[in-house]
């Protein structure tokens, strides 16, 4: 049995999904966290639950909302579980009505009853249920209260009856529904009532669907006739407003009978916090202070010391233990070298940075779950508007600091195609966590007294380049008038320890997993390439295959300050995954730990060349996984190639300028 989870954004669908399935999906306190459908098995294992993006209505504006309409039109499922936010019933019931019109079995989970009661809203659940003609189960998805009963109910009831609740849209509409039914001649299995209403509301997905049964012109005439008939009889400007108001009336009636709101003048805590956080003058400074703290904790105060400890453990006891073990079993010198110089150097070199990456992900999760993300969008909108984007585009970019892949996907919530494309193209310029190890290594070697400052400059450079390019692209290749910004600012919620940890782990897990698989295999391969050469095995590294491959790029990179085959080879592997750069360097420079690698690097890079190298790494190309995501999101090879091409060009240009001017100035 397949159950679809539907509801407004930010009503707790994903929390519910996690609770019911025992699996873990990404929860956040901003609209648009879930942008793709996700399937999970219910704990009891009898049914699968499908988590869908949040929508306010079935008539989509943005692409993530389209996922839901498409799902209803084309996928098969058995029943719908509609999550509604008890503290925002009026708005939530608009979707419920549309789902009821869809005419499939529906069960309602009344979520956030804790929030509602705090706001003085009392809901007579039984009255609401009997009026809607569906089962309504009050729950608190966050704590799991009521979720078991809900699961029990959703799966055990044989076939929930289809509700007989209807909104009356007047006889003109009833006539129109009959007319469409005749035109369709029973060729569709969806409710004609629902199709008619969605079509008249201007739902493009439904229109396209109907056009596969009815001629375009016939359909247009139908829409025109109906609109005329209705608008001439009622005082409404447009047909969608007419439908909206009819629903609004019905909801008003429903709520009058089943809810009671205690009038209170207490200002909610959320608004008090907002009075400071989004204060006219404090908003931006507070954002920068938060980012500064995030940054210093990751790189300076907490992250570096932890990484150093881990480095000590890996290069000390672990390497020593492995060495002893290999000698004990009498492994050949080849195996010795492969394990210690290849795998330990390659994988260990990446694992050292796990603490810093987890700290970063922890803070990103914290920002997401608290509700601050949407405020950032508000605070940044003015700046973003200047470069042809809107504040919402800043959210994918912030997510991109963790990893560019979910960042690019988060761009789906941006309504206008032009701004969405821009965001997809520019998010890879955000310095993701996989680039962090490279910076950490280089600042440790070259800029010991200004570590955090230098890394901060790279993060800021990424943002500045993105903003400048946004301006350039939006006035040249991605021109267009429409810019659009309306954002829901959800109430602040205190993040829960467990959810926060899970969220951090889910994001960071990928990094650890990649180290164990991709980086592991890559390290073996790179080591082999460095071990073998045209003259045979165990050659001098400079005569290895790796040196030959890297050497091809060396002359091209010389004007940037790092024209060595080592740099060329690392950059090549960096396209596969940014952290592979570190693995490659560890193997090439043939050292047991980070400290001695840094010692060696000083000999092959000048400080300005090191900075130029970091800038190049920051910008030069989205990693393979990001490229695949860009292809999927844009659906175009042209734009995917463009995203790689412009990055390479900008990186080359900037690194060139930095190195040439830097050397000229005598650094």
């Amino acid at each position: 049995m397949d159950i679809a989870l539907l509801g407004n954004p930010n009503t707790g669908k994903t929390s519910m999904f996690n609770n019911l399935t025992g699996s873990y999906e990404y929860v956040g306190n901003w609209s648009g966290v879930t942008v793709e459908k996700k399937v999970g098995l219910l704990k009891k294992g009898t049914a699968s639950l499908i988590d869908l993006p949040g929508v306010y209505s079935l008539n989509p504006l943005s692409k993530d909302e389209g996922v839901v309409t498409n799902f209803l039109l084309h996928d098969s499922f058995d029943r719908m579980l509609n999550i509604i936010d008890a503290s925002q019933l009026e708005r939530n019931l608009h979707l419920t009505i549309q789902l009821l019109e869809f005419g499939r079995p529906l069960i309602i989970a009344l979520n956030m009853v804790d929030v509602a009661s705090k706001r003085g809203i009392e809901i007579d659940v039984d009255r609401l249920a009997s009026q809607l003609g569906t089962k309504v189960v009050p729950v608190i998805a966050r704590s799991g209260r009521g979720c078991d009963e809900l699961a029990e109910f959703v799966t055990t009831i044989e076939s929930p009856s289809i509700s007989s609740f209807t909104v009356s849209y007047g006889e003109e509409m009833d006539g129109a529904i009959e007319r469409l039914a005749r035109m369709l001649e029973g060729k569709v299995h969806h409710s004609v009532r629902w199709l008619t209403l969605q079509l008249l509301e201007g739902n493009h997905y439904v229109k396209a669907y109907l056009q596969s049964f009815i001629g375009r012109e016939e359909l247009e005439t139908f829409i025109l006739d109906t609109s005329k008939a209705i608008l001439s009889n009622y005082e409404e400007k447009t047909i969608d407003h007419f439908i909206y108001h009819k629903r609004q009336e019905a909801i008003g009636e429903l709520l009058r009978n089943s809810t009671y709101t205690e009038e209170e003048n207490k200002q909610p805590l959320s608004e008090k916090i907002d009075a400071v956080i989004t204060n006219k003058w404090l908003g931006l400074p507070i954002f920068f202070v938060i980012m500064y703290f995030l940054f210093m904790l990751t790189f300076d105060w907490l992250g570096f010391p932890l990484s150093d400890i881990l480095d000590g453990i890996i290069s000390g006891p672990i390497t020593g233990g492995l060495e002893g073990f290999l000698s004990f079993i009498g492994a050949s010198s080849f195996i010795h070298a492969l394990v210690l110089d290849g795998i330990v150097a390659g994988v260990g070199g990446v694992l050292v940075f796990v603490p810093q990456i987890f700290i970063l992900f922890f803070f990103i999760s914290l920002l997401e779950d608290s509700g601050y993300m949407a405020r950032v969008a508000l605070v940044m909108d003015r700046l973003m508007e200047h470069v042809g984007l809107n504040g919402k585009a800043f959210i994918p970019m912030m997510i991109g600091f963790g990893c560019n892949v979910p960042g690019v996907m988060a761009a789906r919530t941006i309504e206008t195609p032009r701004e969405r494309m821009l965001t997809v193209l520019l998010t890879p310029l955000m310095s993701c966590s996989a680039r962090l190890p490279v910076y950490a290594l280089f600042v440790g070697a070259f800029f010991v007294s200004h570590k955090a400052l230098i890394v901060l400059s790279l993060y800021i450079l990424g943002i500045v380049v993105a903003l400048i390019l946004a301006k350039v692209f939006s006035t040249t290749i991605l021109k267009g008038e429409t810019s659009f910004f309306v954002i829901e600012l959800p109430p602040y919620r205190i993040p829960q320890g467990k959810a926060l940890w899970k969220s951090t782990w889910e994001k960071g897990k990928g990094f650890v997993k990649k180290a164990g698989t991709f980086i592991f295999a890559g390290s073996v391969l790179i080591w082999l390439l460095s071990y073998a050469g045209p003259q045979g095995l165990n050659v001098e590294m400079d005569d290895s295959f790796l040196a030959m491959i890297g050497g091809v790029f060396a002359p091209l990179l010389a004007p940037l300050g790092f024209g060595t085959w080592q740099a060329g080879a690392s950059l090549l592997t960096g396209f596969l995954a940014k952290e592979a750069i570190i693995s490659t360097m560890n193997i090439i420079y043939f050292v047991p730990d980070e400290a001695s690698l840094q010692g060696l690097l000083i000999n092959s890079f000048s400080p300005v060349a090191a900075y130029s190298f970091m800038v190049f790494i920051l910008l030069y190309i989205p990693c393979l996984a990001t490229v695949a995501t860009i292809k999927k999101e844009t659906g175009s090879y042209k734009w995917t190639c463009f995203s790689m091409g412009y990055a390479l060009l900008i990186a080359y240009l900037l690194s060139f300028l930095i190195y040439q001017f830097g050397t000229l100035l005598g650094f």
Partner: protein
Amino acid sequence: MLAGLRIGKRAKIIDTSGADRLVRRRLLDLGITEGSEVCIKCKMPFGGPFMLESCGQCVGIRRREAQTIKVEEL
């Protein structure tokens, strides 16, 4: 006009037909339309967006859009 409303004052929306079609649709999704009571919570500097409150929920919209929405102070 909504843009002229002072911070903290409540007003009722009387006409949204001047606003951009997409903005109107999104506000409608959020339950903000003719007849809704709104209150401006804050205005971002340098011509930045506004934060509105309506029925206990907060929404951010641009100043330009707020200039096209007719309201009546309560």
